[in-house]
C-alpha cells in the first residue's frame, strides 16, 4: 500500500513533467499545424543549456530554467525555418521527414559537441524528504517533487494567461484555428507561427531541464523516448487542446508509475503506449471533446 501510494506520488510528479512537455508539444502542433519529431532534441538542448549554467554559475535553478528556455527557443527558430515554413501547404509527410532529419542532425551534432558521456546534475534542489503520516501509512514527498509540481502549475497558468489576455497570445490562437482567416485580418501569420512554435519549444526545453534534474543523469540520446511520450500525451489530448494534453501527460505519468509496481521498470513504455493505443481504440479523438481536428 505504501509502495503504491509512493509510486502514485512519483507518477504525479512525472506526469507533471509530461504535462509540461505535452503543453509545449500541443502548442507547436496547434500553431504550426504539423507534428514534430525534433522535440526530444529540443528538450536535450534545454537540459544541456541548464547543465552548463549550473556548471559555470552554480546551482541557480531560476537561471538554469531561463537558459534552457532560451536555448530551446533559439534552436526552434532553425527548426521552423528548415522544417515548417516552406511546407505549410505541402503533404504532411514531407515536413515530418524533415523534422526526423533535423532530429538526427542535432542528436549527432550534440554527441560531437558535448561528448557522448553521461552528464549529471547533482543537488540542484536540496534532497529533503517530508513524510506525511496517514494513519498507518507513511507517504514520502521529496522537495524536488514539490518544486517540480509547483513550477509546472505556475508555467501552465502563465501560458493560459498569455493565450487569453495578451495580444500576441490571441493572435496565436487565431493562427492556430485558421491561417487564411488570420491573414485576412492582418496578422503576420509567419511571424506568429514562429513565435508560437518557439514558445512551445521553450516549454519543451524547461521540461527537458526538469527531467534531467529529476533523473539526475542524462545523455544526448536519453530524450528520444521522452519525445515519444510528449507526442503520445498530446495525441491523448487531441493534439491541439492544451488542457487535455496536460491531462494526457498526467495520466501517462501516473499509469507508467503504477504499471511498474506490478511489473519491472523496463515495461514503463509498454504501459504508456499500451494505454495510448487502448485509449485511441475506445475514443479516437482522445480526451478532447470536439471531434474532427484532422492534423
Amino acid at each position: 500500500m505504501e509502495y503504491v501510494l509512493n509510486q502514485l506520488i512519483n507518477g504525479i510528479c512525472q506526469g507533471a513533467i509530461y504535462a509540461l512537455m505535452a503543453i509545449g508539444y500541443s502548442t507547436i502542433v496547434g500553431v504550426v499545424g504539423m507534428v514534430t519529431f525534433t522535440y526530444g532534441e529540443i528538450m536535450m538542448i534545454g537540459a544541456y543549456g541548464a547543465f552548463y549554467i549550473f556548471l559555470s554559475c552554480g546551482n541557480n535553478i531560476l537561471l538554469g530554467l531561463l537558459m534552457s528556455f532560451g536555448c530551446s527557443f533559439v534552436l526552434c527558430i532553425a527548426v521552423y525555418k528548415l522544417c515548417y515554413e516552406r511546407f505549410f501547404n505541402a503533404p504532411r509527410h514531407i515536413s515530418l521527414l524533415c523534422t526526423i532529419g533535423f532530429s538526427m542532425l542535432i542528436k549527432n551534432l550534440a554527441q560531437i559537441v558535448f561528448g557522448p558521456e553521461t552528464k549529471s546534475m547533482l543537488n540542484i534542489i536540496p534532497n529533503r524528504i517530508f513524510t506525511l503520516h496517514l494513519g498507518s501509512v507513511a507517504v514520502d514527498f521529496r522537495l524536488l517533487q514539490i518544486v517540480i509540481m509547483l513550477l509546472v502549475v505556475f508555467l501552465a497558468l502563465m501560458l493560459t494567461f498569455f493565450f487569453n489576455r495578451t495580444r500576441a497570445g490571441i493572435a496565436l490562437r487565431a493562427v492556430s484555428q485558421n491561417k487564411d482567416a488570420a491573414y485576412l485580418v492582418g496578422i503576420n501569420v509567419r511571424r506568429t507561427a514562429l513565435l508560437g512554435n518557439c514558445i512551445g519549444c521553450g516549454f519543451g526545453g524547461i521540461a527537458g531541464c526538469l527531467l534531467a534534474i529529476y533523473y539526475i543523469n542524462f545523455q544526448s540520446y536519453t530524450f528520444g523516448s521522452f519525445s515519444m511520450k510528449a507526442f503520445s500525451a498530446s495525441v491523448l489530448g487531441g493534439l491541439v487542446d492544451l488542457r487535455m494534453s496536460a491531462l494526457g501527460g498526467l495520466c501517462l505519468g501516473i499509469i507508467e508509475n503504477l504499471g511498474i509496481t506490478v511489473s519491472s521498470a523496463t515495461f514503463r513504455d509498454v504501459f504508456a503506449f499500451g494505454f495510448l493505443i487502448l485509449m485511441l481504440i475506445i475514443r479516437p479523438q482522445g480526451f478532447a471533446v470536439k471531434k474532427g481536428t484532422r492534423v
Partner: protein
Amino acid sequence: MSTLKNLWQKKRWIFWLLIIALLCVPPLLKILGIYKVKALYLRYACNIMMYATLAGSLNIINGYSGQTCLGQAGFFAIGAYTCAILSTRFGVSFWVLLPLCGLASGLIGLLVSLPTLRLQGIYLSIVTLGASEIIRIIAQTASITGGAMGIKGIPYPWLFGLDAFRPEYYYFIFLVLGILFLFCTSRILNSRVGRAWISIREDQVAAKSLGVRTSFYKSLNFVYGAFWAGVIGCAYAPFVNFIESSQFTTDKGFDVLAMIVIGGQGTLVGPIIGSAIVTVLTESLRFLGVWRYVIYALIIIAMMWLRPQGIAGATNSILAGGKVKRKPQKRKGAAA
C-alpha cells in the same frame, strides 16, 4: 530508337531477364572462381537488396494507400524473432519459416491495423510507432527472445545442400525474395485491389462513394505490407546470425522511411534507389564516424527541400503535393 522502344513495350520481360542476369553476375564470378569479388561488397549488395524489399513493403503502406506507418521496424522484428526462435529452438527449416514469419508478421499487422481504421493521419502514425516500440521492448525483456542478450547462432539456410553462410550464396536468397516481391506487388497494383488502394490514397470520400470498402482495403494493405516485412525479417535473422532488440529501434523504422521518401513514394523503383543511396552512403562514409549521420541527416533535409517527391517520384503526383512548386510565387505575393 523507336524499335527499341517498341521492343520495350512488347517484350518487357526480356529486359527484366537481362537485368536479373546482370545482377547474378557478381556472385557467380566469385562462386566460379573467375574473379575474387570482395565479400564485403557482396554483403553491401545483400544489404541493399534486403532494405530495398523492406522499404518496398513500407512503400505499399505509405506510398500506395496513403497511410502513414512509422512502425515498419516492428513488423521487421516480428519476422526476425519468429525465425530466430523457431529455428534455434525447434530447428524448423528456413524455407518453411519464410512464409510462416510473413504470416506471423501479417497477423500483427492486422492487429495494428484494426484500431487504426478509425484513425487518420498522425493518429495512425503514433499508433504504429507505439506498436513498434512495444514489440521492441517486449523483445528486449521477454525470456523467449533472449532478453537484452539477443539470440545468437541462428542457423544458416541450406540451399541445394550448400550452406548459405557465405554472402555470395545469401545474395541469391535476397535477390529471389526481392524479385518475388516486385513481381507480386506489380501484379497486385495493376489489379482491382491495387486500384482500390490507390483510390483510397487519392480521395477516401470518393472511394467510399464508389463502393470501395475502405476499412477492408486499408487493413489488407497493412497486412500485405507487414507480410513482406516479416518475410524479409526472416531472411535477415540468419544473414546477420545474431539479433537483439537494439537492431529494431524506431530509428531503423525512420531509416526505412527515409529510403522510400528519398527514392520516391508510390513508385516501384523508388525504394530500390532509396535503399541503394542510403546504404552506400552510410557504408562508404563509415570512416567519418558520427559525422556520417550528420551528413545523412543533411541529405534528408536537402532532399525534402529540393525534391520532396523523391528521385523516382513524379512531380505531378499527390505525394509531391503539387503545391510545393507554386510556393515561391505565393510567398512573393504575401511579402508584397
